[in-house]
């Protein structure tokens, strides 16, 4: 098949990143990668992907910036309030039946989703017996997630979402504001562990009752999506829950038979088989 030059360049660049830095983007969705690499080309003043490849191979110092362009996902706390409302009203009553809980937020980026879940569980009185694993491949983003400090001008949007999601009381009960920033509470962080984990190359690491992985799978190819969903399946206990993004679906996944739809509109699934 006559491959277009741009496609050849893209494949070579992804191979180069893998061989040189062991970051594996070879099975990422090409359409989003292309757009983000175009941003990187502009940023690094490159006319083509081949030029970008040359610079990345020889200048390791560019990698943190490239990783930010390729992997950072800015999201809001309690993004899609109906999802968090469904977790609170439909999933939490079942989570209550476990003496101890583990939750995995996969692809946590800068931490907004992980803190949202921590706050939700705290409000429901479950955080004390919960450990939340928040993982990502971007170590710079993980450091920000660990810090749990966000610009104060984002807080009103977060609060609005929190309220719409059925949150008890005010979001301000969970952070301290100072110098234009909001720092989320130590009492939340005491139950959160942030770790470097790749859905493309690492394996399952614990048995959990809930996996929340929203708008991460859309950046993967079908094959890599299947791998990630398999990891979730292997990590979840029987009847454990998997939550994904509002326009994502397990319908096209190789492992759809392992899950049943628990809250269809909110994209919350329950594991029924291994």
């Amino acid at each position, binding site marked *: 098949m006559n491959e277009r030059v741009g496609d050849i360049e893209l494949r070579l660049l992804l191979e180069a990143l893998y061989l040189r830095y062991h970051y594996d983007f070879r099975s990422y969705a*090409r*359409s*989003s990668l292309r*757009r983000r690499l175009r941003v990187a080309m502009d940023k690094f003043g490159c006319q083509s992907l081949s030029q970008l490849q040359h610079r990345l191979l020889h200048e390791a110092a560019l990698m943190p910036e490239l990783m930010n362009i390729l992997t950072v996902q800015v*999201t809001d706390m309690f993004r*899609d309030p109906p999802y968090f409302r469904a977790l609170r009203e439909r999933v939490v009553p079942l989570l209550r039946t476990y003496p101890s809980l583990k939750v995995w937020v996969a692809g946590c980026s800068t931490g907004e989703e992980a803190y949202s879940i921590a706050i939700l569980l705290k409000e429901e009185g479950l955080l004390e017996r919960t450990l939340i694993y928040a993982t990502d491949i971007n170590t710079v983003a993980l450091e920000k997630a660990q810090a749990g400090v966000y610009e104060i001008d984002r807080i009103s949007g977060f609060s609005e979402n929190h309220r719409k999601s059925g949150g008890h009381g005010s979001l301000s009960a969970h952070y301290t504001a100072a110098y234009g920033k909001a720092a989320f509470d130590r009492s939340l962080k005491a139950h959160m562990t942030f770790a470097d984990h790749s859905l493309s190359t690492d394996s399952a690491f614990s048995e959990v009752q809930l996996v929340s992985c929203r708008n991460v*799978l859309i950046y993967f190819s079908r094959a890599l999506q299947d791998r990630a969903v398999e990891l979730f399946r292997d990590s979840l206990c029987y009847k454990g829950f998997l939550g994904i993004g509002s326009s994502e*679906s397990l319908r096209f996944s190789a492992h759809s038979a392992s899950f049943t739809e628990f809250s269809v509109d909110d994209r919350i699934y329950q594991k029924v088989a291994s």
Partner: protein
Amino acid sequence: MNRRPLEEISAVVIGASAGGVEALGVLLPALPARCRAAVLIVVHMPRQRPSLLKDLFTARCPLQVREAQDKQPVEPGTVYFAPPDYHLMVETNEDASVALALSVDEPVHFSRPSIDVLFESAAECWGDRLMAIILTGANSDGVQGLAAVSRLGGITVVQDPGEAVADTLPAGAVRTGLAQHVLPLAGIGAMLSQLGRAP
């Protein structure tokens, strides 16, 4: 450049913002039931779920109307709306089949979904088998996308800015000089009615 005849078109992309729902109310009923092309649409709407677009047009369009889901195979003769707050793109699989792809990347021209993102991705996927339509709109998201469609050999259509509810977008698209057809909605509807005509 010679453009393909309408019956050889594999996909139609449509972009609109202010006034778009009314304009689509004229165009989508004009699609013929025999149409084999897939139709992908971005309309700028307030961020809300669930989107009402699918329900709004299901009864008024002879083709299947769906809200796009990630990795959904693109089927002929089907209309897909970009979901609220996601960019809509297309992706060619290894077996050359085409699937929908979504992203939550930053808004483009303050818009997510963005018309530019859809048009650029569709142009790369379908090249000269693509027809792109810019309708009424109050910002410039879509102008670059139309240029990409033109560069890769697709057919470019713009709603007559004089008729549009908001003319910023269509006038911007006309100014690029890359619009092959500048037509009122009735004229665009007549073009759509030829889609999927027996060759």
